[in-house]
């Protein structure tokens, strides 16, 4: 494909989509590391806490889904606009 404005735009969209999911993933990972360590500590002392620990542990996972939602919008919902441009 010859490099046209639309082509560059589409490429940038793809890069943006990748960054959205990737950075959100890093953020969630950073968020979970502290929670995970704490939960493992608590569960070692009190096994009955496992359920609530999982609950807390999985809270930041939603961040990735937000990133993914943005990526999906970029890749699919904006493609028609990109074609017009």
């Amino acid at each position: 494909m010859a490099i046209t404005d639309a082509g560059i735009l589409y490429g940038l969209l793809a890069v943006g989509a990748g960054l959205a999911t990737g950075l959100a993933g890093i953020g969630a990972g950073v968020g979970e590391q502290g929670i995970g360590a704490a939960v493992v500590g608590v569960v070692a002392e009190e096994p009955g806490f496992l359920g609530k620990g999982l609950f807390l542990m999985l809270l930041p996972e939603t961040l990735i889904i937000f990133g993914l939602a943005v990526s999906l919008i970029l890749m699919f919902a904006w493609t028609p606009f990109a074609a017009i441009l």
Partner: protein
Amino acid sequence: MLRPVEMSRIVVAGSKDVIEPVVEKLHELRLLHLVNFSGSQNGFEMGKPIGKAKEYSEDLIKLRSMARYLDVKSKAPTVTFSDSQVLSQKDDLINKVGDEVTSTFERMVAIDAESKIKLDQAKVLRPLAVLPLPLEDYYGYETLAVFVGTVKSAVDADVARVSPKSEVYSGSTKTASIVAVFVPKDKASEVSSVLSEHGFAEISVPHLEGNVDSAISCLESSAKSLEAEKAPLQQKLKDLRKQYEDLILATDEYLSIQTQKTEAPLRFATTENAFVIDGWAPTSEFGRLKADIESAAGGHVDVEKLDDAEAEGLAEHGEDIPTKMNNPGIVKPYELITRLYAIPEYKEFDPTLLIFVFFPIMFGMILGDIGYGVMIFLAVMLLKKKFRTDGWQQLCNIVLIASVWAVIFGAVFGEIFGPLGLWGKIMGHLPEHEIELLKETGGFFGEGVFGALGRLGPGGIFPMDRLATNAVLMLIGISIFIGVLHCSVGSIFGIKTELNYGEKKHAYFERLPVLMFQVFFAIFLLGLVMGQMIMVYLGGIVILISIVMNVMGPEGPMGAAHIPFYVSNLISYLRLLAIGLASVGLAFAANQLAFYVIMPMLSGGAESPTIFATIAGIIVLFLVHFINMLLGILSPFMHPLRLHYVEMFTKFYSAHGGGVEYSPFGHVRRFLKA
């Protein structure tokens, strides 16, 4: 099913003469969840243990220590004993066998200690081998002080300076210099301080005789013979364990039951001549409980049910009503998931049935592969045979049902270890003009609107290829739809729970707005996608109303702070699509890697792959699919779990703190015959 079993508050009062038959019967019935006597009522005091409570608990302690020496652990019962069998063998087991076990074990401990002492002595002696003295020369003097140890530098000159009458022997090993200093007793303290300047560290020489090397070999050989003595003792314990394991477990159970019965009055309120037992029992069982206890006590006891208002009052004063979850057999395994989070309170809903409905579907939708589904099904069947404890069985049943759904969704998505690449060959290719038509409308992704596979159903929707754009867009919609449904059920339960607790304001201005917001937010989005402006306006208006209601609610303007969470809760359901995409992506990559990269590459461009290339390809396929399947058990399990715990349970569950599980007075008989 959605509510715990209905409970009644029960009071058993009677003459102290019949306390034993009543306790016996209560224990046998296993119906009454006892409420412990708090000791606060005037005129009543805590009861005293009946019968031989002390004897039983002493026996139990002896038995448990014996079981610990023998390393007897609880297991699935293979033989059962009757009470009389246990009773006749109990004393023999605890005293005769117990003494034998204890003495054997203690002998083993003594051997360990003795051989450790010998080995330690040998270790101490080893450095002394460099000195020319026999061992008896190091001790037994009346006028001499002896210093033996390691030093950092030569000490001869300094010792001679403070004590002209002295004898110093020195030598060095690989790691340290060893000295033995003999001086008159009156110079001992001065010599000691001189030695410490040279970094002296004392070695305490054991009182042995003869040459150092022969002493060491003597010590080591006696340690070895002690160790050899241990082996038959270990074998003896092993044999005893094999012989008595079942009896020990049965006796443990028998004694536990007896102590439980004899110590039960500690939980009752008593007066001089009477006793009162408080407790909760399922309402439906009250008739049986009353009849059985009254007949056991020959009419000297009264069993009454408190009326609802009175029971309610007690509950309000801090008495916990026990929760007994009430689910049919097929739903029961899912109580594991509920329990992992919290036991529902008596007045709350038991969400187990909802988990049973939603969890397997979510699991299936994420995994969605016939191959993986069948493999997991078979693997779990094996695990189920292997691990027979309750927890494992429940877990296995959960995954078993979920894997069936994975197979069903696998058929919908057309995946057997990744997307089907054979579809075109089976179904034939699409006609050229149809492909052109699809390309014009922008709907061409491979063949078929929903990917390379679609030929069946309206618009060629089945089997859809999850990697095709239209399929992704459609699954986004389905995920959000499941989310709205899931959250709405949760919200409705939330409203009903608040009403059960009589909190109308919380019900209508905190829970209801969530329901309205989420449902109409979905309608709003749907309207935007479909271009139906009427749905957009309707959705917008109701969303505004729900925000206003939230602000009017118990939290005031702060309530509006929850609004972003309502949106994020729905977006969170996108994981149903997202994690599935990741897994199908990996499976697709595995197939591509093996069939289109590794096999052609290793065949050197030959028409059909060589044997070596085929084997290499199969290894790669196996490895990548195996990893993907492991991930495919873990994430489709964890994420729906999260959707239940975070997105759904928070809407209605445990707003008032966790419940207390119904555990009736009694004991499950596992090793004893009923």
